[in-house]
């Protein structure tokens, strides 16, 4: 999906404080682009993702999503839009603890009014793609943090979204599962899905093709990421190697 933000300001109400969190963000992201948003905690990264995911309405400024004026859409339309075209992955995976991995992935499909057999098939398919095949019936509490994040990613991808919004996907993960999650995100972006990842960890962020540095609710700097950095080229080599093996 194509994203255009023009001078977006937003507030977030948390308890009694009602603080401005975004102060005039302008950003354009092309379809299939892979963008990392970097910045210290409190810089407004998560808030930016919430605005992009139509969960916070901009207070001022404009937000176009594939040419649609988001601020003019009704709550119900926004919910539908989220369900069909936007996938979220949260820092803590945010799975429903009473449901199995499979059932968690089915949740978004329920709201798309997809029949139970097709739902199951799709959820099994996407979990299999992400390497969760043998652990479909486990509940989140019985999974490793890395696997939980995979399930969260599977859930985000279940409806075949055009935009993936990912908040701190690797926090709390060991280096290896963190790398795996990042690889999976890259592979999604290669399929034409627009991916926006918020992270505090510059090393992870550098794997993106484009870096957006935030501070105090503003974009302070944009960088090209990707091949310039040694780590990323290692990733690319690995991906190429994998492609060759197939």
């Amino acid at each position, binding site marked *: 999906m194509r994203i255009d933000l023009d001078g977006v300001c937003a507030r*977030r*109400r*948390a308890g009694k404080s009602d603080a401005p969190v975004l102060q005039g963000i302008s950003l354009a992201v092309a379809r299939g682009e892979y963008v990392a948003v970097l910045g210290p905690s409190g810089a407004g990264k*998560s808030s930016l993702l*919430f605005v992009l*995911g139509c*969960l*916070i309405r901009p207070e001022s400024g404009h937000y176009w999503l594939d040419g649609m004026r988001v601020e003019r859409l009704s*709550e*119900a339309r926004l*919910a*539908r839009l*989220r*369900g*069909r075209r936007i996938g*979220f992955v*949260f820092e803590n995976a*945010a799975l*429903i603890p*009473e*449901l199995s991995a499979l059932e968690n992935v089915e*949740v*978004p499909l*329920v*709201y*798309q*009014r*997809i*029949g*139970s057999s097709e739902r199951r098939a799709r959820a099994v398919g996407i979990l299999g793609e992400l390497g969760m095949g043998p652990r479909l019936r486990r509940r989140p509490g019985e999974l490793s943090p890395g696997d939980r994040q995979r399930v969260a990613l599977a*859930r985000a991808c279940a*409806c075949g979204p055009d935009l993936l919004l990912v908040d701190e996907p690797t926090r709390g993960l060991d280096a290896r599962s963190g790398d795996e999650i990042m690889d999976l995100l890259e592979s999604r972006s290669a399929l034409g899905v627009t991916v926006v990842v918020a992270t505090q960890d510059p090393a992870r962020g550098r794997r993106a093709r484009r870096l957006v540095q935030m501070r105090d609710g503003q974009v302070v700097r944009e960088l090209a990421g990707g091949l310039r950095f040694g780590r990323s080229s290692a990733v690319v080599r690995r991906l190429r190697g994998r492609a060759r093996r197939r």
Partner: protein
Amino acid sequence: MTRLRDVLWRGLQSILARPGRAALAAFGIGLGVAAALQLLGAVDTDSAADAPRRMPPARIHRLMVSHGERESVAAVWTTTPAEAQRAGLRAGEGRMLADLDLRDARRVAVLGAGLRAELFGFGSGLHETIQIGESRFSVIGVLEPRAAVPGSGEPDPNRAVLLPESVVAAHLAHLLPSAGAPAAGDGRGSGRAAPSLLGAVAAISLLLGGSALASAMLATVIERAREIALRRVVGATRREVFAELLLESVLVSTLGGLAGIAAALALEPGVSARLSGELVVWSAPVALVLAAFVGAAAGLVPALRAAGTDPVRALTSD
């Protein structure tokens, strides 16, 4: 209706996750439904006529009966010959009520032996007249002495007056508290629950069950705030969230209602026969609808609250 099934399934899972809470709410509603069933049974007197039993309380009224200067309070039972026979009452002198008495609404009465002695002393009393309210009845028979069944709460047959049921409308209606809501026993040795008492029990337990359910649902909504937020994130509209919670509430109360019906049926031969009338065929569906309605009312505020959840706040607060 794949969605409905999903919602019911999720509701069931949520109930099973915290069985105690749902059980408490369901218990209150079940109790209310059981009481409501008894109430419906008590009001339905037609079916009560078919059941074998002792003198049923539904149409027994404590009324003043007199003969000349003598008077006494008697248990006036407006009945049919068949019913009196089932209650094990027979005439020792004269004759019992007959079908013709009923058909023609004849003003005839059969007295208990004890009552006869009070009104007529050593006289036989047959073919004499007694007065109940403004109406006179001719005595056609005297019951064989029979003891009341101990513990049944049945009035003493020795102090009873049997009248054909068909005379009530013409001659006694003004003396009775109101048609269809027969008087309770006088409290002396009467173990029967009056319909008004049952109504109060039903109303209070439905109210308590409903508020227990409302608070349980509210607790669920607060506990599951993250889950609800998450559902909103992955595409649920406010309306869908509202409908889900409301349905869950109706599910709990309906299950409670089913349990209440089961309990009422289980108690029927024992307790409920003494409480009042029969269970009627249509009373179970009516009670279920009542339970579902209570569930919907109780779930309204929690469901509204769930629908109003701000996903961002719910997901970011820890």
